[in-house]
Structures are given as structure tokens and as C-alpha cells.
């Protein structure tokens, strides 16, 4: 690595991770940013570029949420971008930051990750329904728990792990997290306790899983010149790698994460590492589920046999005092899992450990090198960062070494959003996704009681779902379609007690979801579907199954026309050969689309500033927030100054403003509702300023004369006990 583009980590900040934070998303991010800047000894003016990692929008409940988070991230009037690779985002974030600095374009880059999962109701897990293919998988009502359980089952089957062995990881992470100030679910626990926790979707039990969380983390990256100037003990990013596999997740063996292995390979090559096991001192694999840490360690050790990782686990090498400590931070299982922020928390842990700032979590020995990894999407992305200690530098005493939970800023836990002013919102977002050529033929097959594939003339793969081109053969056009046998073999499965929205099915009901390798294709070419007509305890990997179709008159050209698979019986035909067919010719009648919608509702806390505003408004008052220098009053009230990225206090620094002294600075008469439909009566929306105050308030204007509205018109803010912009009314 040439020093010309070497990139250092020179500061970190984070909030507490909590199940439900009182703060609004931007308020969480701002707390982490302020702390990271302080740790780096910089101000926001020293920052050349800002990037944000967060995914998906369905958690926070804001479309383009990266834009929503600009102010909280310190991105105002800065080069700002949001990037994501699903759950791999947190570790990809410093990689994107590394690009900013290593390219020579910027000297410093502030990297921020925020995730606020709690607004999504009834449970954030419901958001995961929409990560699946909208046409071929979402109708099955799958969620992330199902796909994890399916992968865990395959992992156990291939490498011979017991559930007890996997539970050891949960025990290690939760124990390590006891020393982490941000930790949400740190505890001393035992394999027995994990095993005794409720089974959600076999083999996954409640304590195998990380919690849903709200939280934010920020780090500061700098080129070597700035790094040496501002940091006595930096850690350098010396290796990066990221790889994204196909979205056709039933088209591979889920047991081994090749994408992690390749991402790690890229990072090792860049860092000059030839023997990772010997050259890396500690590991932060992504551990949203306990088995995932081992799954990822196989990838990081690039060992498809999985033997070495199992030896290390069983020998106790992964413990904090072991030879190969993993997740010294406490990981997602112990610290919590605000997805993207978790990955960046792991990067911060490398920085803490390598610079001797990890406090109670500090690992023994002379640490030279650590590795962090994240994973995500449909079991398909691996992101890897390797960091090095700067040998010869002296560790400085920082706020991190003695940090306590109480001293961490932000992440104020609340049990129920209803404890504070809140806004309910139900998005009515509907789609009709065009099926296109290949899916039309595939879905018409379901209507005809057939599973259809297409065959690549180049690699010879028989592909399901049928595809119009081959993704592994330079996008080669595929024109040969086949009806396939409707029999197959269970590759992996889960016995699920939960529905897509995380609610329990109850009454002993179990849904069985399986990846089924379809006959007439090749190894690792399957689809996900339900299995019925079998006692759950009799389902096994390798079980032969046959499709059960709905009656012809009930079929609509949907994957649910195939009602379920059942065990193959004596007498079922198994020697059916694929039959070549003519694909559907597209015309206005046959070119169909698949309907869908975002099935989520949201309940947002008003945030610290919003709580102040709406509580004041209930009393007919308006307050702004006075800046620390006493020169500027901000409205709406705010917990931070987005130009300086320093905290403000909406209570201590509240400054009353006469609500009747508003003057219109902007206005419009709108004729449509939020759906684009004509309003019965035009509505005036106004932007209102107040003398001597920085900022404005948006609201509705009650007037009998919309055409008479003009700039400078005096208006009065009306009291209301309701919360939300639709109740902010001027007269």
C-alpha cells in the first residue's frame, strides 16, 4: 500500500443502541457525528465530504432517507452521498469513504451510519417481506427469519453443527458486550439458556438472533498527512473488498459464502496478507444470528470445508482470551443490530482495539491487525475491511477508553412511542411490476400447472425462474423454454412458528418453507416454496417432493397456483423429461404485470425537537432554540446546529417567540392531494418566518381568500393538541 493514498481512521462516535429511541433519525446521527468530530479533534469545517450508509428506507419510513439524514450527518453544503449494499452497508461505508480519500479527491471524509428500525409497525421485521422478489417470492409471505433459518439449516447439514454448538457464539458475543457502553442486550448467558429460548423458525431460536435496534455510528477518515497531524494513534485501512452475488438466491448452495471469501481475498491481496489466520489478530465477523459468525468465518478463512472454523469454535479459540478472538465488541448479538450502524460499530471496534482504547474490552497482546466483515441482501453480499495499527505511535487517552453507557450521547430509550408526541402514517404505495418476456412465460406455466425453465445455450444451465438472458454468460440471450417435472428434492428448509410480520402463528401452527431443487435442472437450481401434507418432524434435507397444484379454475398465473409441495409417494412419476415449449408471445393481452404494495405502517416519534414544538403548540406557545453563542434563535426548535454540528438543547436554550408575529415568506395554492387526486377545495400551504429568527415553519393557512395571500402577510400560529404537519395551522 503506497502511503500516497493510505487512509486513516482518526475518530469515532456512537449513540447507545436501543430498541426504540426517543430521538428522530437525524438527531441520532448528529450525536454520533459530534462525538466523532470531537474524538478526531476536528470541526465540521475540516470535513471535505460526508457519506451516509443506511438501508433500507422501509425501517425509518422515509423515501430517500439518505436525503432526510443530510442535516444530521453534517452533510449540509458538502459533497454528500448515500450508498448501500443491504446489511453489508456498515462495513462498506468505510470502503466508500476510503474511495473518497484514496482517490485523492478529498483529504477527509466523515462516514455516518444510522438506522432507526422502530418506526415500522407492528414490527420492523415486516419490512423484510419486501426484500424478496416481488413476483416470484413475496406471494409466499416470507421474511428474513425464514431465509436465515433456511440458510442455518443448510449450514448445519453441510458442516455437521449441532444447535448447541452454534449457541456458543451467542454466549460469547453477549458476554463480550458487557464491556461495551452502547450495548443493548449484553448479558452473561449460557448455551442452555439459548437452547431454552422460544423457537421462532426452526432451527432459529430467539436467543440465536440479534435484536432490532435504533442507533447511529460515525467515524472520521483522513489521508495520511491529516491523520498524522491530528491523531497520535491512528489505525489505517489497508485492505478492502466487497462482492455481490446473484439475486437468484435459490441458485446456489447457501452453506458457504463465496461472496465473503472473494471479498476477503480482495482485501488480503491489497493488505499483503498471505496467511490470514496467522496475520490477523482479531476478527469482527457479522453476527446477526449466531451461526452467521461461523458461516462468515469460513468465508474469511476461505475454507469451504469448514473444518478449521469448527476446530477453533470447539477449542474455545473464539473466546475473548482465546487465540482467535471474534466479536470482541459484543457484535450484533450483544451490542445490538441497527443494521448499517452495526457494521460501522465493528469498524469502530477495530479502531478502538488497535489504538488501545477499548477499555474493558481491550484484548491482550500487541495487536497489529484486525478484520471486520458485514453481509446482507438475499444472502449475497460480503464486505470486508482490514485495519492496521500504526506501529511506533503512542496511544493517546481519549474519551473512549473510559466511556460508560451513561456518558454516551443519544439513544434515549422509550418503551412505547405513545409516551411522547408521535405521528402515524400509512403509505399507500402501490405497484404493478411488468413481468416481461421470461416471467410471463414462467407464470403462464404456473397457470397451466407447470414449472417452467429456460436453458442457456452457452453454459447449458436450465434456469428457474425462466430467464430471458443468462447472468453468468455475458448476458447471452436465452430463447429455449421448457416445461420441467414438478418434482424435486429438499435442499434446505425451516419449520416456522412466525408469520412475515413476526407475529406468532399460534395454535401450534407451523409453516414449512423449503428450497427445492427441481428435477430436470442441475445442482443448486431451485425455488423456494411451502411444504405440506407432512409431519414437520419428518421433513429432512434430501426429501423428495412433488408439487400440488390448485384446481385449474382457481389458477391465475401466480406462483401460488402451485399450492405447495408434498412428499413424493409411491406411484408418482419421477422420470418426466423436460419438454421444450414455445414461449408466450407478448401482446397487449399477454403482457401482464404483477400487483403489489408496501404493506407497512409507521409510527414516528416527533423527536426531541418535535416533542418540544408540539408540546409547546398544545399550550399555544412557540419556542425556538438559542445557539450556544446566544446570537441565533433557530426554528423549528433543534437539538443540533446543522451548520456547526454541535449540540443544542431545546429545553435549556428555549426562547419564546410570539406565535402571532409570523410573516409569510413563501406560499402556494395546491389543488391535489398526496395521491395526485383533485382536492374538493384548494389548500394554501405557507412557509412562515418570524422576525430575528433563523428558520421558518411550514403549515396550512386557513383563509377565505387564497388569491389574496402574499409575501409579508402577517399570520398567527394556532394552538393544537395534535401532532404532525397537517395540524400546523396559521390564520
Amino acid at each position, binding site marked *: 500500500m503506497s502511503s500516497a493514498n493510505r487512509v486513516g481512521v482518526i475518530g469515532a462516535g456512537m449513540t447507545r443502541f436501543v430498541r426504540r429511541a426517543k430521538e428522530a433519525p437525524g438527531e441520532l446521527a448528529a450525536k454520533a457525528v459530534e462525538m466523532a468530530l470531537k474524538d478526531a479533534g476536528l470541526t465540521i469545517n475540516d470535513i471535505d465530504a460526508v457519506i451516509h450508509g443506511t438501508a433500507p428506507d422501509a425501517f425509518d419510513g422515509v423515501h*430517500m432517507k439518505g436525503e432526510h439524514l443530510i442535516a444530521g450527518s453534517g452533510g449540509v453544503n458538502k459533497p454528500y452521498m448515500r*450508498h448501500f449494499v443491504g446489511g453489508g452497508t456498515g462495513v462498506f461505508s468505510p470502503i466508500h469513504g476510503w474511495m473518497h480519500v484514496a482517490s485523492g479527491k478529498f483529504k477527509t471524509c466523515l462516514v455516518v451510519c444510522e438506522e432507526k428500525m422502530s418506526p415500522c409497525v407492528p414490527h420492523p421485521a415486516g419490512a423484510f417481506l419486501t426484500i424478496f422478489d416481488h413476483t416470484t417470492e413475496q406471494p409466499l409471505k416470507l421474511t428474513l427469519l425464514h431465509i436465515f433459518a433456511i440458510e442455518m439449516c443448510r449450514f448445519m447439514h453441510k458442516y455437521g453443527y449441532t444447535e448447541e454448538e452454534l449457541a456458543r457464539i451467542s454466549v460469547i458475543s453477549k458476554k463480550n458486550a458487557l464491556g461495551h457502553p452502547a450495548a443493548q442486550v449484553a448479558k452473561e448467558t449460557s448455551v442452555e439458556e439459548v437452547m431454552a429460548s422460544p423457537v421462532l423458525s426452526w432451527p432459529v431460536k430467539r436467543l440465536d438472533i440479534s435484536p432490532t435496534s435504533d442507533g447511529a455510528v460515525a467515524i472520521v477518515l483522513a489521508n495520511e498527512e491529516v491523520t498524522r497531524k491530528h491523531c497520535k494513534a491512528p489505525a489505517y485501512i489497508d485492505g478492502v473488498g466487497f462482492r455481490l452475488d446473484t439475486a437468484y438466491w435459490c441458485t446456489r448452495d447457501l452453506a458457504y459464502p463465496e461472496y465473503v471469501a472473494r471479498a476477503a481475498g480482495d482485501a488480503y491481496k491489497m493488505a499483503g496478507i498471505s496467511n490470514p489466520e496467522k496475520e490477523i489478530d482479531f476478527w469482527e465477523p457479522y453476527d446477526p444470528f449466531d451461526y452467521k459468525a461461523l458461516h462468515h468465518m469460513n468465508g474469511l478463512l476461505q475454507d469451504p470445508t469448514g473444518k478449521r472454523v469448527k476446530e477453533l469454535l470447539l477449542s474455545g479459540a473464539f473466546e475473548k482470551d482465546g487465540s482467535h478472538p471474534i466479536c470482541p465488541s459484543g457484535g450484533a448479538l450483544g451490542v445490538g443490530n441497527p443494521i448499517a450502524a452495526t457494521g460501522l460499530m465493528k469498524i469502530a471496534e477495530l479502531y478502538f482495539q488497535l489504538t488501545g482504547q477499548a477499555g474493558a474490552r481491550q484484548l491482550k497482546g500487541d495487536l497489529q491487525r484486525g478484520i471486520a466483515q458485514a453481509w446482507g441482501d438475499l444472502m449475497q453480499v460480503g464486505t470486508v475491511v482490514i485495519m492496521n495499527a500504526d506501529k511506533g505511535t503512542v496511544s493517546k487517552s481519549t474519551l473512549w477508553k473510559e466511556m460508560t453507557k451513561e456518558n454516551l450521547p443519544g439513544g434515549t430509550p422509550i418503551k412505547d412511542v405513545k409516551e411522547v408526541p408521535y405521528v402515524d402514517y400509512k403509505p399507500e404505495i402501490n405497484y404493478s411490476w411488468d413481468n416481461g418476456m421470461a416471467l410471463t412465460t414462467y407464470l403462464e406455466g404456473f397457470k397451466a400447472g407447470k414449472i417452467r425453465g429456460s436453458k442457456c445455450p452457452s453454459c447449458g444451465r436450465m434456469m428457474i425462474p425462466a430467464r430471458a438472458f443468462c447472468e453468468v454468460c*455475458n448476458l447471452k440471450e436465452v430463447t429455449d423454454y421448457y416445461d420441467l417435472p414438478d418434482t424435486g428434492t429438499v435442499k434446505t428448509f425451516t419449520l416456522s412458528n412466525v408469520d412475515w410480520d413476526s407475529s406468532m402463528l399460534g395454535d401450534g401452527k407451523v409453516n414449512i418453507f423449503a428450497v427445492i431443487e427441481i428435477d430436470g435442472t442441475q445442482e443448486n437450481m431451485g425455488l423456494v416454496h411451502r411444504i405440506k401434507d407432512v409431519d414437520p418432524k419428518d421433513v429432512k434435507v434430501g426429501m423428495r417432493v412433488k408439487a400440488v397444484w390448485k384446481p385449474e379454475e382457481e389458477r391465475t398465473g401466480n406462483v401460488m397456483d402451485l399450492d405447495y409441495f408434498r412428499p413424493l409417494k409411491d406411484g408418482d412419476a419421477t422420470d418426466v423429461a423436460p419438454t421444450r415449449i414455445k414461449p408466450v408471445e407478448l401482446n397487449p393481452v399477454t403482457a401482464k404485470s404483477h400487483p403489489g404494495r408496501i404493506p407497512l405502517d409507521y409510527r414516528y416519534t416527533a423527536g426531541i425537537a418535535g416533542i418540544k414544538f408540539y408540546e409547546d403548540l398544545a399550550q399555544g406557545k412557540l419556542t425556538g432554540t438559542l445557539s450556544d453563542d446566544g446570537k441565533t434563535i433557530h426554528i423549528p426548535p433543534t437539538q443540533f446546529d446543522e451548520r456547526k454540528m454541535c449540540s443544542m438543547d431545546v429545553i435549556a436554550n428555549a426562547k419564546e417567540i410570539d406565535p402571532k408575529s409570523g410573516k409569510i415568506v413563501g406560499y402556494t395554492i395546491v389543488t391535489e392531494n398526496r395521491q395526485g387526486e383533485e382536492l374538493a377545495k384548494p389548500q394554501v400551504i405557507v412557509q412562515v418566518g418570524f422576525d430575528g429568527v433563523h428558520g421558518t415553519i411550514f403549515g396550512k393557512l386557513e383563509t377565505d381568500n387564497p388569491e389574496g395571500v402574499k409575501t409579508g402577510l402577517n399570520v398567527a400560529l394556532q394552538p393544537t393538541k395534535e401532532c404532525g404537519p397537517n395540524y400546523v395551522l396559521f390564520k
Partner: protein
Amino acid sequence: MNVAILGVGFCGSFPKSDGLSYRELIRRAATQAYADAGIEAAELEGAVSCEEDFISGYSISDEYVPDQLGVQMKSVYTICGDFLHGLSSATMQLKTGRFKLLAVESYCKASNILNKDEVLNFAYDPVWNRFDVTPNYLAGIEMQQFLERSEYSADDVANVVTDAKAKGLSNSLAPYGSHLPKNEILDGRSVASPVTEAMIAKPADAAVVFVLGTQEANIKKARKPVFISGTGWSSGNSVLERRDHATSTGTVDAAKMAFLEAGVSDPKKDLDAIYVSDLYAHRALIHLEAMGIKGGLNEKINPDGGSISTGDLIEANGGARLYDAVLQLRGEAGSHQLPNVKRAAAQGWRGLPTDSCAVVVIDQERRS
């Protein structure tokens, strides 16, 4: 280090594209771009896609990027930004020296979304700015403030539409080109006064793919490479209450960065073709002012008819503009070809409620 645009592909624009899945739409643009660059998908080291979840209808939409670009198991990530943001990111990635050949992609299947205003409304802050009225309300406030504080009039804004639609008639990729008189624009149905329906670009479907590279061998292999000489991007305040809605500081800062890097000192003189976002007609004027280009429209601004003629392609808008800029530099823009184009700049804006903008300058010849 020179970063070259080795190949470009564009499939669209269509008001609707039923019969093509989003995968098939993107694959067509990718196949075109790879052929143009003289490469196979397998040669690519990775890709950058530019999209947002609720536009595609997926959560974590980056999952669905690699297959139709032929880059599965490669280094792929997603930027939530305009195509020009993604291209700027890919340019940095190449300039680290660790990568040599990448694709940049964005697509829009707006026709898959049944209620686009509802999606846009969902982008507003739920506590402060998300009303139960059209999310275009902010465009109304922007235009009202811009007209009050600038020398432009509503007539000038209507002229943007008339000009764009007329230019679109010469662009075979622009489905909304037409002759639309100024009075019909001003007297048209008001959506959020003073914004009328004709002042808002209509949605369309398209995919755009570029191949970027740094290696001499690839540059020699490409049919007609052009060169990226400056990139810049910036975001105005996301707190709408404290943003100046009559200007675009995002564009001011993005242009400053890109022009400095590219050595553009007088954009009006130095640039032979200029593209700006005109998703709302008044925004075209705001963006031109912010880029330091006074005096409104002329023939070298948005020669393709802009989004008003090509359609609102959401995150692919900047890509559509830059695609035309590449054609102009190559002399392949057909009946809307400008004379003697050696240098062009494209500005992209992410649309309401943002002021997040990017500017890219490209040259026919490498600069160093």
C-alpha cells in the same frame, strides 16, 4: 489518471414499457454499452447502480442489480443518487488505482408505480413537512420565491417548457416532444401555484448504462471514448425550514467543484453543450443561475429536450442528459447535433424535496 467513458447504452424513453421487465430493460442498455466499449460483461470488475428502494418497489434494492449487468459476484454497490452521483463515485473508485473497468447503471420503471406522488410524499419529513396535499407544494413555493427574487417571470418559465418540447421533436428518444405554445402552459391546470401541470416533467421508463475505464488498452478498444474531466456534487440543507428555496446551493457547490477540476472558468464560453435538470421548468433557470450561466436558455442548453421532453427518469435523469452529451461529443446526436462540440457539462438534481445535485464535465480529448 484519466477516466474514460468507454461505452454508453440507453434503452428508452417510453411512457410505458410493458413487455419488458426491469431486468430486461437494463440488460438491453447494458448489452449496448458493452458492445460500444468493445468489452464483454465478464471483463468488468464491478458496477455502481443508482436507485432508491421505493422507486423499484424493493427494500434493499441493490440485491437486484448484478444479474442484468452480468456482474454477479463482482464488486457492486448502490448509490442513492442521480446517475451523475454514481458516475462520480465510480470515478473515485477508479482513481484509487485498485479498479480499472466498471459499469455505472440507473434505470426507471416509473410505469410500475401506480401512485408516484404518494412515493414522493413519503420523502418528506413526517414530523415537519409531510402534508396530505400534493408533494409538489414545495415546487410551488420554490417557483414563487424564485420569481419574486430574480429577474425572471412566469413567461420565462413557460419558455423553458416551450423550448424543451420543441427541441424534443428532434430527439428520437424523447416521447414528449411537441409544439406547446406559452399561453397553454401558463393557462394550464394549476397543480401548486404558480406551477402548472405542463411545467412538470412527465414520468417515463428507461435504463442507462455507461462503461468507465482507465487502462490504455481498453481506451484503444472502445469505439469512441470520451473523457471525464471534472466531477462535483453537493447537497443543500435537508431542513426545509432553513433552506433558501429561491436558489440551489447544491448546484452552486457541485459546479464549483467540477469546473475547478476540469478547468472551466467561464461555463457559458468554455462549454459547447450544457445540460441541466428541468424536472420543474423553474428549476432549469435556478440551476443555470447556480452554474453561473446567466440569461436563460439558448440552443446549446438541453439540446435533447431535457426531462420535459425525454420524461422524468428519476435517478436516471442525469444519465439521459450525459448520454446525449456523449453523443454530441462524438457527433452522433443526429438531427439535434450541435456544431463542433468538444466539451460538455451535465447537471443532475435528485428532485423534490432535495437540493442534492451533481455536475460532470466531459471532454472529447483527454486533458492531461
